[in-house]
């Protein structure tokens, strides 16, 4: 650390021999690593928080080993006690991975944004995606290091017998995966709060997610996986795989959304996200068909239970309502930069226009994707019915598809109209559209009860078609006694009417055409292509 010596970072690796080669190779490899990862790793090594966490982890791992042996004595010497020991190690692993890591990642990105260091980062050549991935990589590195501190403990519990290797592996996978999912969510939430006032809420949201994940994961891992020895059941691997698939889709969506939030406003921040939502929907449909099909092949009386598929439709309707509301906050003005990349051929315009940025295309995109998905799932269930390998659910899949389509179209159209009106005074924002969505959903749910109280002076006693605007009661009914085709048709028709009203306001956005690139840019791209 002699200040007169040049700093090691400013020196080229010049030595010969093996160590020189190692030196050169690592410098070369470092050039390709994400700069943020390098920076954060350097900072982490210096930061007390990281060092303290690591040694606390190590210490609690050892402490539990000693404590566990003492409390389990003398059984531990001749009985398989791995499972009891593992419960302690689970918490030593899950508390930092599921709690600390997402919070640190969230703070790290949020602090970057409100300390003003982010702007300096934004004007470098790092893309917004690389910035987010850099933060994610740092979190992953931390997870690896924390994991390393617990590995001896896990190995020890295996040696004590009572835990199978597949179960142990499954538990570690689930913890890692959940931690990664939480981290991407935390990163996305960090980019949502651009004002200081919102940051407290953002932190609360992350804390909520983390706590929820902590409980859920503990239940699944200790009760489900370790308790049932799930690693040796192929069925549970199917679930891990299916949820892993959908979860990965969510992760990509979160990361892309975070990157879009911090990207320059003139960039096309929407099309990529829409492809992502679309893919996530495909994964969801695939997963939700796979599970009933698996049971159909593995149960003696071979039937397809359509109830989970109805349930999947409901989740999807919620998904598209929220995504649709978020897309409604996009700006209807397309920057010249975006207009340069619009599809220009007839076919391209027909199929890809839905992916163009803008609230109008977003609205149509959400509706079309949702309705197409409901139709697909209804056809799947119905064909199973046709093949007589079908257990009838409470609501017929076709009625369910109509009902969900109707609700999606009706509520999103209503939100769009309200946002168009309110937006004139308040301006477009995510907060406005989500608040409107919440308000519309709540209002519609209480409407029949309020009407009934006003007219008869009493709350409605039993479900009737008058309760259709109350989506909560209707859904409850759909999964208990079932909703008829005619009621579902009615909801769908109401939605369609609101859609017709809306579509009158849509034309402008679909009329955007591709524009030419400026000469200087074209020349530069040509010279790049030559190099």
């Amino acid at each position, binding site marked *: *650390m002699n*200040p*007169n010596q*040049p*700093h090691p*970072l*400013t*020196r*080229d690796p010049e030595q010969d021999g093996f160590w020189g080669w190692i030196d050169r190779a690592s*410098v*070369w490899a*470092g*050039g*390709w690593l994400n*700069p*943020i990862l*390098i*920076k954060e790793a*350097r*900072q982490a090594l*210096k*930061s007390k928080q990281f060092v303290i966490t690591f040694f606390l982890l190590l210490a609690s791992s050892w402490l539990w080993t000693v404590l566990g042996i003492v409390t389990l004595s003398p059984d531990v010497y001749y009985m398989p006690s791995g499972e009891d020991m593992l419960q302690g190690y689970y918490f030593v692993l899950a508390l930092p991975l599921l709690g600390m890591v997402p919070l640190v990642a969230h703070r790290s990105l949020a602090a970057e944004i409100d*300390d*003003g*260091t982010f*702007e*300096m*980062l*934004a*004007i*470098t*050549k*790092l*893309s917004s995606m690389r910035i987010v991935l850099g933060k994610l990589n740092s979190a992953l590195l931390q997870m690896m290091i924390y994991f390393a501190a617990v590995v001896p403990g896990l190995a020890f519990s295996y040696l004590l017998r009572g835990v199978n290797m597949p179960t142990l592996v499954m538990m570690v996978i689930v913890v890692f995966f959940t931690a990664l999912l939480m981290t991407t969510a935390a990163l996305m939430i960090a980019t949502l709060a651009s004002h200081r006032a919102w940051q407290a809420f953002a932190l609360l949201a992350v804390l909520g997610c983390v706590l929820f994940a902590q409980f859920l994961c503990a239940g699944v891992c200790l009760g489900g996986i370790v308790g049932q020895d799930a690693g040796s059941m192929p069925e549970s691997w199917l679930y891990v795989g299916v949820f892993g698939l959908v979860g990965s889709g969510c992760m990509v969506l979160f990361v892309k959304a975070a990157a879009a939030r911090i990207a*320059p*406003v*003139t*960039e096309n921040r929407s099309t990529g996200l829409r492809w992502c939502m679309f893919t996530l929907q495909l994964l969801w449909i695939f997963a939700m068909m796979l599970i009933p099909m698996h049971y159909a092949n593995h149960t003696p009386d071979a039937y397809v239970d359509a109830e989970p598929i109805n349930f999947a439709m409901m989740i999807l309707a919620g998904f598209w309502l929220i995504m649709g509301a978020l897309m409604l906050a996009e700006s209807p003005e397309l*920057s*010249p*930069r975006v207009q340069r990349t619009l599809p220009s051929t007839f076919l391209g315009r027909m199929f890809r226009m839905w992916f163009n940025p803008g609230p109008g295309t977003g609205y149509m995109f959400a509706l079309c994707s949702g309705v197409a998905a409901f139709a697909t799932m209804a056809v799947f269930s119905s064909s199973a019915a046709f093949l007589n390998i079908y257990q009838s659910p409470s609501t017929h899949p076709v009625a369910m598809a109509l009902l969900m389509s109707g609700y999606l179209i009706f509520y999103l159209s209503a939100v769009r109209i309200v946002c168009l009106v309110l937006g004139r005074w308040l301006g477009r924002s995510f907060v406005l559209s989500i608040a409107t969505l919440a308000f519309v959903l709540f209002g519609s749910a209480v409407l029949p009860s309020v009407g009934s109280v006003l007219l008869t002076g009493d709350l409605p006693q039993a479900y009737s078609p008058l309760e259709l605007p109350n989506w909560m009661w209707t859904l409850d009914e759909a999964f208990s006694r079932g909703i008829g085709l005619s009621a579902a048709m009615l909801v769908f028709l109401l939605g369609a009417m609101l859609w017709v009203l809306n579509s009158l306001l849509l034309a402008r956005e679909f009329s955007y055409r591709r524009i030419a690139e*400026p000469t*200087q*840019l074209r*020349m*530069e791209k040509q*010279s*790049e292509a030559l*190099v």
Partner: protein
Amino acid sequence: MIASSWNGPAIELQRLCRDFGSTRAVNDVSFTVPPGGVFGYIGPNGAGKTTSMRILATLELPTSGDAFIQGLSAINDPDRVRGRLGFMPDGFGTYGDTNCAEYLDFFARSYGVIGRDRTRRLRRVMEFTGLDQLAYKPIRGLSKGMKQRLCLGRALIHDPAVLILDEPAAGLDPRARIELRQMIRALAAEGKTILISSHILTELAEMCDSVGIIERGCLLATGTVEEIRRQLRKTRNILVRILGDVAPAVKLLQPHPAVDQLEGERGLIRFHLHGGDDVQVELLRILTDARIDVLDYATVDESLEDVFLQITQGHVQ
């Protein structure tokens, strides 16, 4: 670096406007800076300097108008503009627990400067800014002057062709100011295009090829310092030294319509002259024609501060 075929202006603002709510921070500002030029951007606090520079640096969007760096729009092609631009903001956050070398190294990597280029640029920039002595020093412990050097170093790390420096001298002690000025001159000599802002005209006058004076979002005047001075000199101070009594000369000059605030005593006459060079020559002819012995006949320069105060009306937002 990409071989650029561009030979137009290095920086160009086209009718740039930016509103914050009802305040118009930048109002229809246009100017160009040729490659290798040093442009001083001068105006009181709240004039809109920072806002327009942030638009150029791709950090802010204009309400209307466009800004170009080497012919590429900072609004529509920010990713391409960023590589050729070094921006030094007036206030900036740093990672307190990194040291200077690590900080610069991080930004070198972020700008895609890797391998031997990276170590070469790091050495070059640290030597240029004098940070090589402070390589191990954590940023938290740096003085304001050293922080400014670090910030300049960061702006230079990827060897950009265009530099945008927002009030780099603000809050520095006189010595640091002089050193900063030397560094900027050295950069100009290397052929970098520089846009530099300040609220003090004299600070920039000697190192700028041209200046623009902005107030309340409007560009009031552009040109070389000399041009601006002349353009705005509607009245000039004339000092006449006369051998002998001043009374006859005073009697001759006093009634002239272009002469104002005349005072004469002990061989010296001062007055304000309204009008151009022709009027000034005419007055001298009147004096010599009347056979008055004129020793000196000179215009007295107004200080730059006077010019500045004349142009701007002292509105501070």
